[in-house]
């Protein structure tokens, strides 16, 4: 029964869904940028409050950037990665590093979602689609960590089995035979990744497409805040 359901679902999930989500992603992203340019931000996350925000912002972004880079490297340079992994000690170091950054992503995500839920100023600028996105990201990160721990060594088998599948999608000739027999957690991780990509243009995640990279090398700016004298901070809420 399960295999029958899987034989119907797999073509939909691994050969049709990717094209649907990428088409949606490009279409809605461009459309949103042209029609609602000023919606291209993540709205206020009370960035200046740094005590709690730090534990969400920093671990999440460092974690996700490293983990995503790892996925891209395995996609672009599979042979080189397999060569690197041909010594177990190098494989162990790579996998442990990936797990560390995966766990940092989880810590950051949980901290960010908790802060967003508890601080009313931020909750007010969080839409329903943002909450859905957080749920999708949570599933993505937890399933990724589960796969890393219970189905190692992903850096090698991704390069050997998942990369050819992804390239078959790029070449418009989808071949998901190597994915069809993967454990459920791996399939969940892949399908959920498609959902995140498809859902991304409807959410605050579009900010990744307009990262103000020049901030990294521009000259420092002095910002002056003119403030009228107010009552003593002791009485504020």
């Amino acid at each position: 029964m399960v295999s029958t359901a899987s034989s119907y679902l797999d073509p939909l999930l691994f050969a049709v869904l990717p094209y649907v989500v990428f088409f949606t992603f490009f279409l809605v992203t461009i459309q949103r940028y042209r029609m609602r340019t000023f919606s291209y931000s993540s709205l206020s996350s009370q960035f200046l409050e740094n005590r709690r925000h730090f534990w969400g912002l920093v671990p999440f972004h460092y974690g996700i950037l490293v983990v995503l880079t790892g996925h891209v490297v395995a996609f672009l340079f599979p042979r080189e990665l397999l060569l690197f992994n041909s010594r177990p000690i190098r494989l162990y170091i790579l996998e442990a590093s990936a797990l560390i950054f995966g766990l940092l992503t989880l810590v950051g995500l949980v901290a960010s979602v908790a802060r967003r839920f508890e601080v009313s100023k931020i909750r007010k600028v969080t839409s329903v689609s943002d909450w859905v996105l957080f749920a999708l990201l949570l599933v993505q990160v937890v399933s990724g960590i589960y796969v890393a721990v219970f189905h190692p060594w992903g850096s090698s088998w991704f390069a050997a089995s998942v990369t050819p599948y992804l390239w078959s999608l790029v070449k418009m000739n989808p071949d998901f035979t190597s994915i069809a027999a993967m454990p459920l957690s791996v399939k969940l991780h892949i399908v959920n990744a498609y959902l995140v990509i498809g859902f991304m243009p409807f959410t605050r995640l579009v900010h990744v497409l307009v990262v103000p990279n020049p901030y990294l090398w521009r000259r420092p700016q002095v910002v002056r805040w003119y403030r009228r004298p107010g009552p003593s901070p002791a009485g504020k809420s």
Partner: protein
Amino acid sequence: MKRLTNRLSFLSLCGAVWLVVGAAAAQDPVEFFRQNCTSCHTIGGGRLTGPDLKNVTQQKDRAWLENFIQNPRAVIDSGDPYALKLFEEARRVLMPTLPGMNPELAKKLIDLIEAESKLEESQFKGLQITDRPFTPREIEIGREIFLGSRKLANGGPACFSCHTMKGLGGLGGGRLGPDLTRVYERLKGRQGLGAWLMAPATQTMRPLFGKHPLQPDEILPLIAFLEDAAHKGGEDTSVAILNFFFLGLGGAILALVCFDAAWRWRLRGVRQPLTEGEIPRGA
């Protein structure tokens, strides 16, 4: 915008369905047989999991064979006595319904088996493996192939990527596929293991090793290594998963401590007065 999005999403769905249907290209029966059948069958090389197919058309009529190849489960479930006999002889291992199979391909496969049966030595006779004891050097080479330190000639990935075994040390091998400590026994010795390694039949391994097949001089040391492991016995009962998880957890905690130490006071001198100082309304 919503209407446009809906229309284009529908178009993308239609396009994607067309791509999947269009991908069902004509199959070469020789390559199909090599990739899908040789792990369980030979033509003139003796029985593996499934029967030797030499002269199979003299044992059963073509129409029955073509029907069986297309959907073995359905024929067995129908109670066909010959299909049930085959099923029992194969130790109740069910022949899979192969992706891409259709009446035309089934006919071509029977033609191929018929033609190969007439040859003195079929290309699908299978790997003929020596009965002599393996040397320690062959076992060592097999271990190097398993771990990946000895590269496979056709560029296939090392077994270690997906499989673990008892006695590998460190954090062990991968756990996407099964523990291979006793695979030699599970596949009934050298012949079965050799046939499997010639053309691995699982859905995950078939696409990989169909494009990057193992060479006979790689298969032999691997059999030596796996036979040696089976003789030593046991299963991989190490706590490698736990060790790996705690290694990651420890590293993550250390990274958080480093983040805190490096950036705890970063910009706080600027931000704190901005967020804690009150700005009166109308300012």
